[in-house]
């Protein structure tokens, strides 16, 4: 498993901007986009729900979301 990760790490972009609350983002994935995948429903709507939840959390934390 870790060997795979080591190979994949070559392809990861180091320019990706990480959020200061990735824990919430990953957990919320299961309830939005992950749920859409599991139930085979609309993945775009799931992605939208994921984005909305993350934006809402960020606003609650005092960030300005544009």
């Amino acid at each position, binding site marked *: 498993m870790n060997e795979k990760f080591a190979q994949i790490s070559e392809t990861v972009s180091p320019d990706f901007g990480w959020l200061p*609350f990735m*824990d919430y983002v990953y*957990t919320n994935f*299961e309830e939005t986009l*992950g749920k859409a995948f599991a*139930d085979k429903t609309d993945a775009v709507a799931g992605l939208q729900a994921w984005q909305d939840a993350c934006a809402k*959390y960020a606003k*609650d*934390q*005092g960030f300005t979301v544009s």
Partner: protein
Amino acid sequence: MSTTVGSAPRAASDASTAIRSRPRLTAARRRQYGAAYALVLPFFVIFIAMMIVPLVYAGYLSLFRTKLIGGRSFAGLENYAKAITDPLFLSGVLRMCVFLVVQVPIMIGLALFFALALDSGMMKLARFTRLSIFVPYAVPGVVATLMWGYLYGPDFGPFAQIGTALGLGPPPFFTPTGMLFSIMNIVNWEFIGYNMIVLYAALRSIAPELYEAARVDGASEIRIAWSIKIPAIRAGLLLTVIFSVIGTFQLFTEPQLLRTLAPTVIGTAYTPNLYAYNVAFVNQDANYAAAMAFLLGIVIMIISYLVQLSAQRKERRS
């Protein structure tokens, strides 16, 4: 050993002098009081440090709001207002109400049935049966959930394998509707034995003369169970019901562990306790979690009180 024997009569005479001269304590009496307080002191130190202080601190935290940008500020009862309108929190409470209405009667009913069957004395291998029903309670909840999680598993569990071999597909243990019943089954398996022992102990304390009198009057065993045994253990039944109500609203271990197996079915807010945990440790919002924990405590107290009240009213009527 000799000192205890020697001191017993002296203590008795001290007690009689203390009654005669109430306001003035003798030196020996005062020493006894001192010893009593010294003996309960460790309990109170731990009780205050581990119960009262954290409770007060949680109550204090629940009145604030912490943001990544802006830091901590006083929020008054805002967190409580947020919780009672939070659809996730309310859906968790509602789910536990469904759980309570379906699971608790099944569990108490089966526990009562087993307790009566064991108490009737008409059962072969009674001792073995009693032990084997009670053993699941001795299994830690985490281990029990892992075991059931394996049995339920749609990809690897034995039921899924049998179902697939017969061409029926895996049974719906982890579907959105099936999950609640799967958890109910685990909780039943764990706690029927415990409730059975409580009820069985209550049954053993009934005076056997009552049964003899009933038999002389020509009552059948079922009539004895219904008219003598069940009314006599009403206090024990009430106790098991209240424990079950409290246990239901505190449901956490089972959904938390099954979440790794079915993360899209059990959300972060499946039960109120699970939601408070996720809000505190994933969303990093300890203030809101503290407010929810307090609200949950109040809900549990109200429901336990209502159960007790209705039982008392029933007793007065009969």
